[in-house]
């Protein structure tokens, strides 16, 4: 407990800091006030007669005035038209699995015991589940409920159809979107890539147009949702007056690991069913009902580094079972990738006060004193809401520490992990739905979505809320939001 002196000192420091932030961020406004005051005084001093003679001395006739006005208007129009088109998020829908797919801890442990005789494996998976941060309501696809699971391609396609079509149907209901109006389709699903692709499957089901521009991204991990958004944004910049449908999902059925290598058993315990369908548009009339506007997307790829590349790696174990191994260095690498991403996104979103502090501290470290700690910018000044990929409890803990966030900021991520598990690329959308369902999303709020994935990649997207979202939201959280937030214990005793 700090002494009174230190405490009051830190309080004073806090006010100094606040004052400094206010001064720097509103610098121009503050400068303008004395200038306006001086001008007003000068005008008052001159009097109307002198002002009139000043005006006449300019010798402006009608032609001059018209030409100037025309030029100003013309240049203004060209400037406005040449700016990049805004990309609006009209609405999005998340798949809500039925209760019949629920996998409470007891079910999961019973399945594990029935599938394998390996006692060590059962105990290891129990320990993971206890510390995972998952709740009792997460869901696995029907094929995984078989004993042993049935990872056939047919079952995988069935899961894909259920999750993707449900999400798109929900999105169509919410937005009144006509399938014929979809110009761009981007689908990402990391570990299931059939022929014909999932994008072709969607085109077939909804009878989309034959000149649709579709892309099927695969293998790009849990951060692929933001890669799809980036691609859709680029396509929307090139094609005016268009709608883009982005579908993010992960198909769990074909990826059940049947072996006993510990580093490969983690995905079995963490990954759950989920899907999200997002409608993006650059049509001006959508601006009225759109929920968000996309401000930035920043992508960082650490694949050139060996350790980062190998940290989430699909391979076969000694018995020939295919699984995804997660290395022990995952947290450190995630932190590293985040730092790289922050250095790019920081200057784009942080207010000037934070940037200056960071810059001065950097200069100080280099020139004055090397032992100064690097300044960690306060991202809470730049964003109201944070959606951190619900990769696992450890990822959320690590990011909370690195970004110095409060428990409230990471609540959406923790609760999504608890209710839905790690749904891979679609988890960011469940988290956003949580914030909306809690009625916390106000107009003007800025949201930062951070995704991590194999590769190793760290991708960020920044959205700005265009209208306050009213509850109830008809989303995946509606029937259970009143129970949240729950306290997720460190270890759940099974």
């Amino acid at each position, binding site marked *: 407990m700090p002494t009174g002196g230190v405490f009051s000192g830190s309080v004073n420091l806090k006010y100094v800091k606040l004052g400094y932030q206010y001064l720097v961020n509103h610098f121009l406004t503050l400068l303008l006030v004395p200038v306006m005051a001086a001008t007003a005084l000068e005008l008052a001093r001159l009097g109307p007669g002198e002002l009139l003679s000043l005006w006449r001395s300019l010798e402006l006739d009608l032609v001059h005035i018209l030409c100037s006005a025309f030029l100003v208007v013309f240049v203004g129009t060209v400037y406005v038209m040449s700016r990049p088109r805004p990309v609006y998020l009209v609405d999005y829908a998340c798949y809500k699995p039925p209760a019949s797919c629920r996998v409470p801890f007891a079910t999961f442990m019973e399945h594990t015991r029935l599938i394998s005789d390996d006692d060590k494996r059962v105990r290891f998976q129990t320990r993971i589940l206890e510390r995972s941060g998952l709740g009792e309501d997460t869901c696995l696809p029907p094929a995984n409920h078989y004993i042993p699971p049935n990872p056939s391609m047919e079952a995988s396609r069935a899961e894909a159809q259920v999750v993707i079509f449900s999400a798109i149907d929900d999105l169509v209901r919410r937005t009144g979107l006509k399938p014929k109006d979809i110009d761009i389709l981007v689908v990402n699903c990391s570990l299931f890539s059939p022929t014909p692709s999932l994008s072709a499957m969607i085109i077939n089901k909804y009878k989309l147009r034959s000149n649709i521009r579709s892309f099927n991204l695969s293998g*790009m991990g849990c951060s692929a949702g933001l890669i799809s958004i980036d691609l859709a944004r680029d396509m929307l910049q090139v094609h005016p007056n268009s709608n883009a449908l982005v579908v993010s999902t992960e198909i769990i059925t074909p990826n059940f690991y049947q072996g006993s290598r510990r580093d490969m058993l983690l995905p079995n315990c963490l990954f759950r069913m989920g899907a999200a369908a997002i409608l993006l548009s650059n049509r001006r009339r959508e601006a009225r009902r759109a929920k968000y506007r996309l401000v930035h997307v920043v992508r960082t790829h650490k694949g050139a580094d060996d350790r980062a590349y190998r940290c989430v790696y699909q391979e076969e174990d000694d018995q020939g079972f295919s699984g995804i191994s997660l290395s022990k260095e995952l947290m450190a690498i995630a932190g590293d990738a985040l730092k790289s991403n922050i250095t790019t996104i920081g200057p784009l979103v942080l207010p000037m006060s934070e940037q200056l502090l960071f810059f001065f501290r950097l200069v100080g470290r280099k020139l004055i004193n090397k032992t100064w700690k690097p300044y960690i910018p306060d991202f809470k000044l730049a964003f109201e809401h944070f959606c951190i990929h619900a990769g696992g409890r450890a990822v959320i803990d690590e990011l909370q520490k690195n970004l110095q966030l409060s428990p409230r900021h990471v609540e959406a991520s923790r609760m999504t992990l608890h209710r839905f598990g790690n749904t891979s690329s679609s988890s960011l959308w469940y988290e956003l739905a949580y914030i909306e369902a809690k009625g916390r999303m106000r107009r003007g709020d800025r949201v930062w979505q951070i995704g991590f994935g194999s590769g190793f990649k760290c991708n960020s997207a920044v959205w700005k809320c265009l209208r306050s979202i009213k509850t109830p939201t008809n989303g995946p959280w509606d029937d259970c939001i009143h129970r949240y937030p729950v306290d997720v214990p460190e270890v759940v005793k099974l």
Partner: protein
Amino acid sequence: MELLALLTVLLLAHAVAYLAWQAVSRRRRACCYLLDYACHKPSDDRKVTTEMAGDVIERNKRLGLPEYRFLLKVIVNSGIGENTYCPRNVLQGREESPTHDDALEEMDDFFTDAVAGVLAKTGVRARDVDLVVLNVGSFSPAPSLVSRLVHRFGMREDVMAYNLSGMGCSAGLIAVDLARNVMLTRPRTTMALVVTSESCTPNWYVGTDKSMMLGNCLFRCGGAAALLTNDPAFRGRAKMELRCLVRANIGAHDDAHAAAVHREDADGRLGVSLSKALPKAAVRAFTENLQRLAPRILPARELARFVSRLLLRKLLLGPRNNSKAEGGGSSPKIDFKTGVDHFCLHPGGTAVIEAVRKSLGLTAHDVEPARMTLHRWGNTSASSLWYVLSYMEAKRRLKRGDRVLMVTFGSGFKCNSCYWEVTRDLADAGAWEDCIDEYPPETLVNPYMDKFGWLNDLQGQGSGFIF
């Protein structure tokens, strides 16, 4: 007050100049040049002859004599020669149990050969690549193959990487489309690496379903890497300039969507099933694509001629249904040769090439590159059109100002086409270097026709497939 006027004029002039410069630089960046490309030539120990293919088929004890005959008949009539390449695990007898590492090894061989090759040829460093688009149809590990590429060549942290998968044989042009669109949005010039291949290792079908066995006979190993850029500084060194790209996807029709499906057969074995409706779907997608392509690439004269003949025919025949026309002769054909000098057709199989040749009214000379590619390399899926282009280049057919049309088909069902203009005389033989002088060969007939020729005498052995 003159100072004020002067200041205003200066500011306005500056603003106008700035906007004009923006517009000009946007126009300049809107071009898309093919700097160079390299086709993968697998090592000779992976060559597979008809006899070797016969041995592999024989190894599969599940196949009975009818299936054996069917397969050999397809191979003998396929137009595929004796020098195509197969994955190592098939040649080593492990086609029933491909491992993850086998598939990765196949990809690594390809990266080391073609990707390193194209970077070396152009002198572009891996760190200069801003955008990588990789397409491999039926193999999608974690981390993605594009991440594997980024890792292997040590690309930058801010490289934009995209990994397409599952999009079939026409995905090579989808990758080009993606690259081109992303290039248009970047404020600075972009160097894009487009890498296309197919993974044959995990996809050798070991069951007994006839519709799935065709893949074994047709698909062979290959790949290509191409460097695209929108930097006008490279115009002098570029080989071709992209003029237009048209994509048509008729997946909305159920039979077209089910034409090529990767699924399990009745015994639970995975394979790509090619349905009997595939040729029809291909024709439909092709028509859809050409309808949108023709107005963009053909000269106005040809379009006017075609439209006038169509109208005339409609008038002459009256309000009767056109499809019942007898006396008026065949329906007027649009002549693509007025706008296109070279046709780069997807060598999906002899029947596909023949069907496209007939519908476009092309000569044997026009389809020779596609036929020869099929003979020398087999159907390498999405990368095959780069081999066809390479053949034309090796034969010194591509001269400055020539216009090239690439047409591909793929599962979905898609037909994609791409129209290029050659920017300088091309003479690089590439992957064809060691054998271009032997092409076209005296005869394309399979040398084992004598040995297995009796197959063709068998009637009604159930081949409704025209591949």
